[in-house]
């Protein structure tokens, strides 16, 4: 079969399509966004009408995927690592209910936080849920794992987790496809209360989950993704998880690594393989992208011998992603640097695009807030987070999706006046609505600015659930209509914006201000596409 040049993320998408998936559910999040986008643009997905619209958030995505699995069909839910925090409730409980049709949860971690608030390691969630977990080391493995994961899920009747990191997700390489599998037919679960987690049933199902742990460990032990390569020099044994294996191999281009190597790509951790390498070798180096997940487990709480080394021991840095140079240094190899970066090179931090509506919003907000004092503006995740940087320095918090509103509420409860929240339209429907409901419920004096650029911008301009329904939602949740104010954020309306914001800041209740103007990136793109379409029609 022909080789496709695919990103790691795309390889997973293609593998899932070829593996007979009937639906993909996701919320955009770097570095996972491209998985769903690939399915949205795929011919087979169109022909088969594979579900491929965005979900409101990761929790609804996993739940819907579980619903499809309940109905006998194969479904995948995708998210970035922090998205799994949002989806944790259905995720953990899906392991207890088990599945009907295969269910695969794909999570893309972001070590070094290229585009995230933290670098949490999803492998802990896999262990927490007690389900099989796959971690590819290259694009072909990513394809193969997604292709096979639905069958593994159906074999053990529980969800399967695929874990990938940024450097694999956003890197292209050649991938060979396998034969396209058919989708599953619609079938109901054999046990009509399999998915009912009333305590009496949940206890039974939990015991069932515990009883299959041995068999999923055996599967990892026999997995083709876990391989022990022998080496003559037993002074060191190297354990390399996922992409770390590539960085290790990069340092031995002639395949001449003298040490034994255990490559790990499937979890639970393979006990017997680990036992062999740890017992055969004097010292162990654990290479993993993320937290010291494997290192910590095999080291043992009381072990001070220094035999097991890795992030915890300082052999590799505790934080940040791996790269071939870090691995080289850990192996005692020389890293040659011939040139330094000249001192005149300056940082070029990210910034709001030229013409972005958020610029006009922050300019107006800053002017208004001069009267009321500093450190009273709460925000969260989106392009508007860049308002924290100069020249605006406009916001004082960014913790997680939707937290802008709820933190403003907590601050208002503590006596902060005025308490302002800046949130985006997509983030609002992701998890701002329940926060707003909390404010309405207590009539908390907060001013919520929903910066509506009618898209999910930072991740590349995906559709937003909020478009065309923001005012209705706010009024429906109970905000008084006269305190839902819509503005057009443009320099020429600056004075009007300042006036309206000031009025609402002084109002002793819940205000929602919606400055609305399409994202300049999506606007430019749709103009270009429109032009191309017109030219094609003209031909």
């Amino acid at each position, binding site marked *: 079969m022909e*080789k496709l*040049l695919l990103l790691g993320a795309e390889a997973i998408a293609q593998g899932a399509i070829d593996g007979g998936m009937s639906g993909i559910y996701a919320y955009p999040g*770097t*570095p996972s*966004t*491209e998985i769903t986008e690939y399915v949205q643009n795929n011919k087979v997905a169109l022909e088969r009408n594979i579900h491929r619209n965005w979900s409101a958030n990761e929790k609804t995505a996993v739940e819907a995927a579980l619903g499809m699995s309940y109905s006998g069909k194969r479904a995948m839910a995708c998210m970035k690592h922090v998205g799994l925090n949002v989806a944790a409730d259905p995720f953990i409980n899906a392991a207890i209910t088990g599945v009907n049709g295969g269910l695969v949860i794909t999570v893309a971690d972001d070590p070094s936080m*290229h*585009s995230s608030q933290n670098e949490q390691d999803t492998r802990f969630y896999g262990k927490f849920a007690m389900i099989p977990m796959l971690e590819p080391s290259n694009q072909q493995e990513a394809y193969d794992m997604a292709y096979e994961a639905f069958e593994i899920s159906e074999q053990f009747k529980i969800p399967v987790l695929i874990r990938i990191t940024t*450097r*694999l997700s*956003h*890197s*292209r*390489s*050649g991938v060979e496809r396998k034969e396209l599998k058919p989708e599953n037919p619609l079938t109901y679960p054999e046990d009509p209360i399999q998915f009912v987690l009333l305590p009496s049933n949940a206890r039974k199902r939990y015991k069932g989950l515990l009883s299959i742990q041995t068999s999923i460990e055996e599967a990892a032990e026999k997995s083709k993704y876990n391989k022990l390569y022998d080496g003559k020099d037993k002074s060191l044994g190297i354990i390399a998880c996922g*992409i770390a294996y*590539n*960085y*290790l*191999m*990069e340092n031995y*281009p002639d395949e001449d690594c003298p040490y034994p190597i255990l490559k790990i790509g499937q979890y639970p951790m393979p006990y017997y393989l680990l036992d062999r390498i740890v017992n055969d070798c004097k010292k162990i180096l654990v290479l993993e992208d993320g937290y010291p997940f494997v290192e910590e487990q095999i080291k043992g709480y009381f072990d001070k011998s220094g035999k097991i080394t890795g992030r915890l021991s300082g052999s590799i840095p505790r934080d940040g992603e791996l*790269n*071939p*140079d870090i691995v*080289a240094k850990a192996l005692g190899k020389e*890293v*040659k*640097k*011939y*040139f*330094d*970066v*000249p001192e*005149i*090179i*300056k*940082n*070029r*931090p*990210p*910034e*709001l*695009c030229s013409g972005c509506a958020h610029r006009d919003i922050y300019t107006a907000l800053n002017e208004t807030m001069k009267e009321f004092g500093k450190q009273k503006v709460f925000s969260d995740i989106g*392009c508007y987070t*860049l308002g924290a940087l100069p020249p605006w320095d406009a916001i004082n918090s960014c913790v997680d999706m939707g937290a802008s509103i709820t933190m403003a509420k907590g601050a208002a409860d503590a006596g902060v006046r005025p308490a302002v929240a800046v949130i985006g339209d997509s983030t609002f429907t992701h998890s701002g609505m329940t926060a707003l409901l909390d404010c309405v419920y207590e009539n908390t004096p907060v001013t919520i600015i929903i910066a509506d650029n009618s898209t999910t911008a*930072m*991740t*590349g301009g995906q559709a937003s659930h909020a478009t065309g329904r923001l005012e209705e939602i706010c009024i429906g949740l109970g905000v008084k209509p006269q305190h839902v104010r819509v503005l057009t954020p443009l320099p020429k309306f600056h004075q009007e914006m300042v006036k309206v914001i000031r009025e609402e800041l002084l109002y002793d209740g819940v205000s929602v201000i919606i400055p609305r103007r399409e994202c300049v990136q999506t606007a430019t793109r749709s103009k270009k596409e429109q032009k*191309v379409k017109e*030219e094609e029609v003209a031909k």
Partner: protein
Amino acid sequence: MKSDIILSGVGGQGIVSIAATIAMTALDSNLNIKQSEVHGMSQRGGAVYSHLRISDTDISSDLIPMGKANIIISVEPMESLRYLPWLNKDGWLVTNSTPFINIPDYPDLKTLHSEIEKFPNHILINADEIARRVKSPRSSNIVMLGAATPFLEIPIKNFESAIKKIFGRKGEKIIELNIQALHAGREFSLKHQKEKV
């Protein structure tokens, strides 16, 4: 055959198209490729880079190790110097001379150019001006690609057919303009190489 290429610039300057074109030539020649890029936050006017590795043997790391890159191809002069630690001692530095100034403390352009000219193996080319000259003002990234072609062990006609494939949807005229941009960049490099010798 092995080529480790670093592409650099500012988000929106089209380094992805350069990477795609080179990757396409490698694919057509049945070579192995790994091409790594940055998405998301990194693109909002910030510095962006891509590591592109081509080889006739298996490639392990998606990222190029320090001191191993054969060439840095940059569409922006300051960005060309940011990744110097990755350049091999005989590596080529091929960069646009036209700055993209979106920070208040952008260095003095003359100083920047002289830092670049310190390298024996450098090409400093005004890609924006050349693109305008061949009537394709938005193809300065393809001019840069052309300027790099003498240092990539891939025949020029492979680049031409890659451009035809990638820009095919946009019509004959666009393809032609980009091919001209490619050759204009290449000629500049060949001329300047000869002058050094």
